[in-house]
């Protein structure tokens, strides 16, 4: 005589944490792959609320499987003829019944839709402006801390307060005095969730100098790479930090401070004197950004095609700039498709400043790793191709 156990009203959701973990892994995959997507030309300069579709390969479970020359056997209607082409819409049979241990690899593709802003946030989740010192006057604010505001009855699972919930259950148990051995399940009313609020963390003042070479040798591809780099940097700063000031400097033989729009869209031409850009930055720092009060970051993108007569003064100016900055990053744009005669990276080997980082950007795939290296002060493989 069989035993029947009734449908239980105690809802438990045993796969919840495994589903959560799977979601985290999918999210990680999106994050790892997003740099390629974000560097797409069409996205640069787009409205940040624009939704983009991201196809994500599911988290695969690899094992040894047979490859292309495997034959299969299936059931048909009896009308099949040798050589006949059948469509590739076979349904997999037998999902019902006893559990079967699956053994066929499936292509699980998740397509998710996210905004550019979300995508950028994911990319920069773990990054910070490096060495952000506490300077005298706080002004830069960043949304970081989540502060406990109290408790509430409804909430998401992550914020379940196990301790409070347990206490409620015990209280109820004491009140009801159940029989010994009787199971005493959690009740919905026992559940208590933490209420959190986003707290604004105050950071010190920060200013970021974006210095770009706009000379004639900076052709379309190079300018695109440089602008992509600054677009990412700009989006990162705008999303993560409030009140961070950004100064745009465009230079060829002369340098001038420009606004955001001109920086990203205007085309210039002429020869190159890199020192001019640095000198302009130093000049602005002297006028407006006292290093005692400001955290200063500078980035310079150029193809390194400098007038050789300027090399010496470029090195001097770069050293001077690095000395007042928390970080000075030089990105040399050298696409594989074009050939440049000279490289400032070789010249910059002479600079012995801890916070000076120089590296090459060859393609759009390099942009994200380059930015990451700058921001994590990673000098490894700096001069490598």
């Amino acid at each position, binding site marked *: 005589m*069989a035993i*029947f156990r009734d449908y239980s009203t105690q809802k438990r959701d045993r796969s919840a944490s495994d*589903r959560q*973990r799977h979601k985290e892994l999918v999210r990680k995959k999106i994050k790892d792959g997003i740099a390629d997507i974000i560097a797409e030309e069409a996205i640069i300069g787009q409205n940040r609320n624009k939704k983009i579709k991201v196809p994500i390969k599911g988290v695969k479970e690899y*094992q040894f499987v047979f490859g292309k020359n495997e*034959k299969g056997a299936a*059931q*048909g209607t009896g009308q099949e003829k040798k050589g006949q082409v059948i469509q590739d819409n076979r349904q997999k049979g037998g999902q019902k019944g006893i559990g079967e241990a699956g*053994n066929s690899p499936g292509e699980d593709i998740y397509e998710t839709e996210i905004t550019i802003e979300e995508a950028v946030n994911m990319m920069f989740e773990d990054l910070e402006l490096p060495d952000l010192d506490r300077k005298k006057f706080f002004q830069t604010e960043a949304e970081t801390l989540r502060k406990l505001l109290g408790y509430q009855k409804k909430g998401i699972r992550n914020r379940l307060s196990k301790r409070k919930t347990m206490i409620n259950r015990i209280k109820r148990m004491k009140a009801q005095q159940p029989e010994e051995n009787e199971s005493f399940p959690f009740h919905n009313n026992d559940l208590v969730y933490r209420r959190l609020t986003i707290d604004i963390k105050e950071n010190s003042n920060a200013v970021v100098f974006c210095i770009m070479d706009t000379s004639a040798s900076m052709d379309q591809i190079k300018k695109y790479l440089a602008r992509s780099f600054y677009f990412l940097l700009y989006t990162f700063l705008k999303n993560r930090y409030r009140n961070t000031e950004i100064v745009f400097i465009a230079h060829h033989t002369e340098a001038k401070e420009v606004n955001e729009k001109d920086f990203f869209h205007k085309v210039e031409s002429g020869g190159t004197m890199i020192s001019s850009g640095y000198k302009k930055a130093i000049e602005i720092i002297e006028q407006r950004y006292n290093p005692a009060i400001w955290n200063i970051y500078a980035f310079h993108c150029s193809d390194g095609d400098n007038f050789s007569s300027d090399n010496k003064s470029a090195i001097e100016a770069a050293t001077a700039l690095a000395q007042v900055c928390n970080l000075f990053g030089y990105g040399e744009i050298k696409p594989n498709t074009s050939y440049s005669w000279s490289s400032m990276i070789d010249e910059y080997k002479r600079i012995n400043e801890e916070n000076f980082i120089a590296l090459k950007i060859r393609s759009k795939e390099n942009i994200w790793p380059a930015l990451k290296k700058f921001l994590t002060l990673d000098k490894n493989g700096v001069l490598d191709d």
Partner: protein
Amino acid sequence: MSNWTLSDLKVWNDRIENIAKEMGLDYFPQEYEVCDYHDMLGYQSYVGMPTRYPHWSFGKAFEKQHTMYKLGMSGLAYEMVINTNPCLAYLMIDNPLAMQVLTMAHVYGHNDFFKNNIHFSHTRPELALEMFRLHSNRVRSYIETPSIGIEKVERILDAAHSIRYQTDRNLLIKSLDVQEQKNNFYKNLNREPDPWDHLKPQDSRTQYDFEPDPVLDLLGFIADNNKYLEDWERDLLNMVKKESLYFLPQMETKVMNEGWASFWHFTILNRLELPADMHMDLIRSHNQVIRPHVGGLNPYHVGYTIFTKLAGSDGHQIKYDIDPQIFEVRTVDRDISFLRRFLTQELADELHLFEYQQRGTRITISEVADDDGWNKVKNTLLKNIGSNSIPIIKVQEVNPRKNTLILKHEYDERELELNYTRKTLEHIHTLWKNPIVLDTTVDNRSVRCTFSDGNFTVEES
């Protein structure tokens, strides 16, 4: 809303059980749990186990099945039976009474099969739930250990899962240990073993030097022989191996088990003397379950067709004496031997079996079950059944110089998918922690795949 109560189910179950017993089914005590669709999805993603160790792949299985169910791409299991003693089965609360009756009759077929089929003899059904529960507790405790944590546990479990079926496939075939192999070798050769054999350089081996057989149990080999594994890592490997050995017989007997259960639910239903309307409902459900899946393979249909033939029926009538030899078949066979023995040309034709092959993006029919082709179709089917659908990777030896693990793929005209091979070797490297070499065949040439220092190479050998 369902049109039944728990006591209705009890009444029907008693009648079903009496018939099952009368007809010679020999089963474990039966227990049912009535659950809703969300629970059922949950059970499905954990292969039926009420407790199982945490791993993201189960969450993925849940999401996938949930999505497919919502999109109407696949139905939900209307029943699940697991190999435990007492035998545990789940019934869906939303199913109408007729469906529950069919399901309960079906359950006794599975229950009998689990208890009697010889390939399940090592699975210890009386301890199964306990084993899964203990494993779950241990994995959770590793995850909670500060020095280990979820990421390290996942790394090992991911890797172990990648080779979980690279283990003894058929425990009924006794593999000889090295000493026994050695004794046989020298007995056949009629010479004494040289006590210095093991010191000879490896490449100077002649046909007179003993070489042990490659080992089929890759997962177990790593657990037993990698001295660099930490205790908890080795424990995880052994756990995955135990669970795989528990599940393997189910993979190996899918067609038989479903066929057997379907044969019995149909036979029992016909003896239940049901009211006419209920009988019609049941026949409709029965036909739904055992209909052929065009373009796929419905194990219910294939297994049911063969068992009814063996029992002496044409599948439609039930007025016959059941040939008792089917009980012997359900005891000794597994899908591969079952189909090899009983899939005749007549049956292959009746099941409309065909063979297909992918050429480029198109899939074409390469053989049909006619006089010339049916044997080829059958052989292809056999290759895709149960563990035959998983490549066999054996351990040849460990090269002592760099502690390289040398593996061999038993090539049977089917090539390995190289991207999956690379990723799997990476996983094995996580477990072995030293270089891995795999010999296989690509485009009819012997090649050697190597995974070492993070690099994967394929070279002709």
